[in-house]
């Protein structure tokens, strides 16, 4: 965009789907994903902290009401799925829901707004939706995966976990098959979590980019319905990520 001449369609698409990276090889960072996700996290959790600091049991104000609605939503879901005593799962689920939702919501910004503004400051690549970066989604899903492993060991003990991994679903006689199944199953969990969110957001962003290539007078015909539909996807994906996290962690707590 900053090159001065009009880019071709494929150049435009590739440009929009390229992260602003710093560094080489594995030890490189996607600056855009990190900056946007940290800013969003700081803003939204700072707001929730501001509400939590002067929270009152009396009549709640609009901000407190809204935050309480979120907390209540998450808490009721956790209570339905998870029947143990764990102080981490509910706040974890809330964090996931709120953070993923706000990161997804960056998709609603017109695709060119942030890259255009930043191009004035000499930043030429900027992907404004962090959840279209698999690093972001895998970071969360692998964290959840680590917690799953941790709670499996903590709740069932090493022996209990091994017994469950080898004994289910076909009984001890088929222990190798069971173990193989269990490994596939457990690896599939973080993979599906991360790829589902990434895929949905990436595809959504891609459609917005394609719509942005159309002449400006027809863009609204496709852009408006897709944006409205995308509001649903944004919320739904955040909700699914949260729900599956709760389900996976509660499965880690319960024996088969």
């Amino acid at each position, binding site marked *: 965009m900053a090159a001065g001449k009009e880019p071709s369609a494929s150049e435009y698409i590739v440009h929009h789907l390229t992260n602003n*990276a710093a560094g080489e090889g594995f030890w490189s960072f996607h600056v855009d994903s990190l900056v946007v996700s940290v800013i969003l996290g700081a803003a939204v959790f700072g707001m929730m902290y501001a509400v939590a600091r002067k929270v009152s049991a009396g009549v709640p104000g609009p901000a407190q009401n809204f935050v*309480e609605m979120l907390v209540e939503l998450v808490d009721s879901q956790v209570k339905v799925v998870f029947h143990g005593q764990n102080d981490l799962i509910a706040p974890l689920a809330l964090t996931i829901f709120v953070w993923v939702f706000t990161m997804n919501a960056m998709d609603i910004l017109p695709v060119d707004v942030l890259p255009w503004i930043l191009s004035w400051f000499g930043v030429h690549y900027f992907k404004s939706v962090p959840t279209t970066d698999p*690093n972001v989604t895998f970071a969360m899903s692998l964290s959840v995966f680590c917690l799953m492993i941790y709670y499996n060991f903590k709740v069932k003990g090493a022996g209990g976990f091994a017994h469950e991994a080898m004994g289910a679903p076909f009984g001890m006689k088929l222990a190798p098959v069971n173990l193989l199944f269990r490994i596939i199953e457990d690896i599939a969990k973080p993979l599906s979590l991360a790829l589902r969110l990434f895929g949905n957001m990436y595809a959504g962003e891609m459609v917005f980019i394609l719509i942005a290539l159309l002449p400006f007078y027809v863009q609204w015909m496709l852009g408006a319905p897709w944006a409205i539909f995308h509001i649903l996807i944004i919320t739904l994906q955040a909700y699914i990520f949260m729900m599956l996290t709760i389900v996976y962690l509660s499965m880690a707590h319960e024996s088969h």
Partner: protein
Amino acid sequence: MNINATLLGQAITFAILVWFTMRFVWPPIMKAMQDRARRIADGLAAAEQGQQKFNQAEKEYEARVNEGRQQAAGIVAQAHKQGVEMIEAAKDAARDEGNRMIEAAKHEIGREREQAREQLKQQVAVLALAGAEQILMREVDRKAHSDLLAKISGGL
């Protein structure tokens, strides 16, 4: 798909956000919501209790009013009876008094008639004696003729 160190940075950010939520956001909001739920439950219980007290008071009030009504009716009936009795008693007393007065008057009349007759007897005796004196033209010895005089007055 370009996996790199961004993943680590994001995981750290994620961990910090989760810790922050768990430490500063979730507990106070949850506590406030639970406090409010308890307050509402207390309020509802108090309302229930108040309703019960009100019902009880209403029952008591009705019972007292009924009792009062019965008492009042009893008092009125008793007063009525007493009034009738008093009227009867007064009537009886008046009748007795009247009879007694009639009796006394009759008695007085009888006594006065007797007195008058006595006086008349005496006067007749005196007149008879005077008449006899006139006839005999002499002093009649009253003492000598007292038997005669008593006989005359006894014959009247």
